[in-house]
C-alpha cells in the first residue's frame, strides 16, 4: 500500500524506475486500447466482413455490412432453408488495426503517386514543413521584437496591444479567401494563414513573458550605470531569453494546428492534400499513418528544441535528478 501512496504523492517526483515505466505507459495505454478494440472480436466490431455470401444475392466476398443486416439476412436464409452467409466480425473501415497502420507507414512512402502530377508522401511532407517554417519564421521575425518592446515599454504596449488583442479573436482561416485573392493559390496564402494564426498570439505571449522579468534585475543594472539601450539589450533580452524560447516551442505547436486549415486554401497541398486524397480512396490506414507522422514530427522537433535549450541556457537551474 505504501508504494501506491508514493505514486500519488502531491508534487513529489516519482522514483526513476516508476517514472520511466509510467512514461512508457503514457504511450502504451492508448495503443493497448486500440489493439483491444481491433483484435478482440467481441469488443465493439459493429460490422461483419463477408467471407461467403451464401444465398444472399447482394452480399459479396470482402464486403462490410452492419451486423443487424447480416443477422436479418441470415435469419431469412435460415427460414428459407438456403445456404447461410458466412462472415467475421469487423470494425468500420475508418478504424484500421494497428498492424495495418504500421504497414502503411512503410507503404505510404514507397507507393508511387497514382498520377504523375501528384506528389510522393515525403514530397508532400516537405511542402508542409516549408509552409510551417516560413509562416512561423516570418511571424517570429516581427512578433518577437514587437513582443519584447511591448513588454518593456508602456508606450509600445499601449500602441500595439489593444489592436492585437482585437485582431487575435478574428479566426485565421476566415482570411483564407482574402489571402488567395491577394497572394495567389500556391504557398504564399498558406504561409499567410499560419502567420496570422501565430503572430498575434505571439506578440501577446511574449510581451507577457517580458513583463515577468524580475524588475529588481533592471534596478540593479541601473545602479550599475546601465541606461535605456543597455537595459533593453543587456538585461531584458538575455533575461527573458530562456522563457521566450519556451514560449516559442509552445507557439510552434500552435502553428502546426493551423497547418491543416492553411493547406486546404487555394490548391490543396502538403500532408493535408495527402490525407484528403487517401481518405477519398478509403485508404484509412494511410490517413492514420499521415496523421501520426505529423504527431511524430511535432514531438520530435519539440524534444530536439528542448535538448537544445538545455545547451543554449546553461544558467537555467538544473532540474533535480
Amino acid at each position, binding site marked *: 500500500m505504501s508504494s501506491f501512496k508514493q505514486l500519488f504523492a502531491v508534487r513529489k517526483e516519482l522514483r526513476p524506475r516508476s517514472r520511466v515505466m509510467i512514461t512508457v505507459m503514457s504511450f502504451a495505454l492508448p495503443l493497448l486500447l486500440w489493439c483491444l478494440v481491433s483484435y478482440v472480436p467481441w469488443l465493439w466490431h459493429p460490422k461483419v466482413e463477408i467471407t461467403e455470401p451464401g444465398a444472399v444475392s447482394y452480399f459479396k466476398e470482402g464486403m462490410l455490412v452492419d451486423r443487424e443486416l447480416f443477422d436479418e439476412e441470415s435469419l431469412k436464409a435460415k427460414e428459407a432453408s438456403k445456404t447461410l452467409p458466412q462472415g467475421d466480425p469487423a470494425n468500420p473501415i475508418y478504424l484500421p488495426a494497428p498492424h495495418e497502420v504500421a504497414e502503411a507507414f512503410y507503404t505510404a512512402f514507397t507507393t508511387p503517386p497514382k498520377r504523375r502530377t501528384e506528389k510522393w508522401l515525403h514530397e508532400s511532407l516537405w511542402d508542409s514543413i516549408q509552409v510551417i517554417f516560413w509562416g512561423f519564421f516570418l511571424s517570429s521575425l516581427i512578433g518577437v521584437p514587437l513582443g519584447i518592446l511591448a513588454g518593456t515599454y508602456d508606450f509600445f504596449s499601449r500602441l500595439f496591444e489593444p489592436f492585437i488583442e482585437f485582431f487575435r479573436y478574428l479566426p485565421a482561416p476566415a482570411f483564407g479567401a482574402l489571402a488567395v485573392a491577394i497572394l495567389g493559390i500556391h504557398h504564399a496564402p498558406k504561409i499567410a494563414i499560419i502567420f496570422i494564426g501565430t503572430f498575434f498570439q505571439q506578440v501577446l505571449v511574449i510581451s507577457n513573458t517580458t513583463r515577468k522579468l524580475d524588475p529588481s534585475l533592471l534596478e540593479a543594472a541601473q*545602479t550599475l550605470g546601465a541606461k535605456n539601450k543597455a537595459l533593453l539589450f543587456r538585461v531584458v533580452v538575455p533575461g527573458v531569453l530562456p522563457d521566450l524560447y519556451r514560449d516559442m516551442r509552445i507557439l510552434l505547436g500552435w502553428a502546426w494546428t493551423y497547418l491543416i486549415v492553411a493547406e486546404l486554401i487555394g490548391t490543396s497541398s502538403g500532408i493535408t492534400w495527402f490525407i484528403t486524397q487517401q481518405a477519398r480512396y478509403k485508404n484509412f490506414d494511410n490517413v492514420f499513418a499521415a496523421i501520426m507522422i505529423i504527431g511524430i514530427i511535432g514531438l520530435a522537433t519539440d524534444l530536439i528544441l528542448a535538448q537544445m535549450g538545455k545547451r543554449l541556457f546553461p544558467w537555467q537551474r538544473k532540474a533535480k535528478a
Partner: protein
Amino acid sequence: MEHLVDLPSYLDQDEDVKDRFARIKQRPIALEIKNLYKQFETPTGAKVTALKDINFTVHKREFVCVIGPSGCGKSTLIRILAGLETPTSGEIILDGKPVQGPGPDRGMVFQGYTLFPWLTVKRNVMFGLEQSGHSKVLAEEDARQWIDLVGLGKFEDSYPHELSGGMKQRVAIARALANQPRILLMDEPYGALDAQTRAKMQQYLMEIWQNIDITIFFITHDLDEAIYLADRILVLKAHPGEVNEIIEVPVPQPRSPEQLLSAEFLATKKRLEELIHPPSEEEEGVNSDHLNMVRMVGVDNEVESVF
C-alpha cells in the same frame, strides 16, 4: 523594561571613542539628505506620508546603519538615495552635487542578490565596468581583482545558481564595488541569510570597509547587526517615517564578536529596544504582547504545566 544588570548610558563614550567621533565630524561630507519628503498615493486615493522631513549627513568613510520598525520607510529612503524612486520634495547631495536618477556613483546591494543569472560571476562583476566604458580586457582584469578580494577566485566562471546565498551576496558586493562608487547602499543585504553566514558576512564587510575608500549606508532590521557594524545609527519611527534619534555607537572600533556582550553594546541595544518597541504603543483593541489564550490542555494531560 526591567534589566537584571545595571548598564551604563548609551551616551557615555570613552575618550578614544569620543575622539574618533570628533575626527569623523571633521571629515568631508559624503552624502547629505536635506528636508526629504516622500508621499505615496494609495489606490483608493488617500495620501500616505512615507518619509517626513529627513535631514541627515554622512561623512566620508563613515559606516551608517538605518533601523526602524516596519513601515518606517527605511527601504523607501535607500531607494530614493539610489535614485530608484523620486522624492516628493527635498534633496540628496552626493559629493556636493545633487543626484538625479540611478547611477554608478551609488552602488547598491539588494536583499535578493539580483545577480544576472545568465552571466557568470566574472561577467556579473564586469557588467558595471563595461557600462562605464572600460574595455573588455581592462574590465576583466578589474573584475578578477574584486572577485579575489571577496574570496571567490575559484568561482569566477560559475553561474549564480551554483552559489550559496552568502557567496551570491559577496558577488553582489564585488559587483557594486567594482564601479568604485562614492557610497555603497545596502538594503537589508543579509536578511535572507542564516545566522552563521550572516556573522561571517558582517566580518567580511567590516574588513572591506576598513581597507578601501568607501562610505557605507546600511539598512537592517537586526539591532545587533546595526550596533556591530555602525559608527552611527539612524533610528527612524513609523507612520510617518521620521528621524527618531541618531545614535553614536559607543562600542570602540575595530569591532570584534566578543564586544557583542560588552556593556556599551548592551546599553546601545537597550536604547534601540526602547526606541523601536516602545512599551505603550499598542494598536487599539489588539494586545500585541499576548495572544488571547485560554487553557486548552485537559486537566488529565500527562504534562500538567510546562513550567
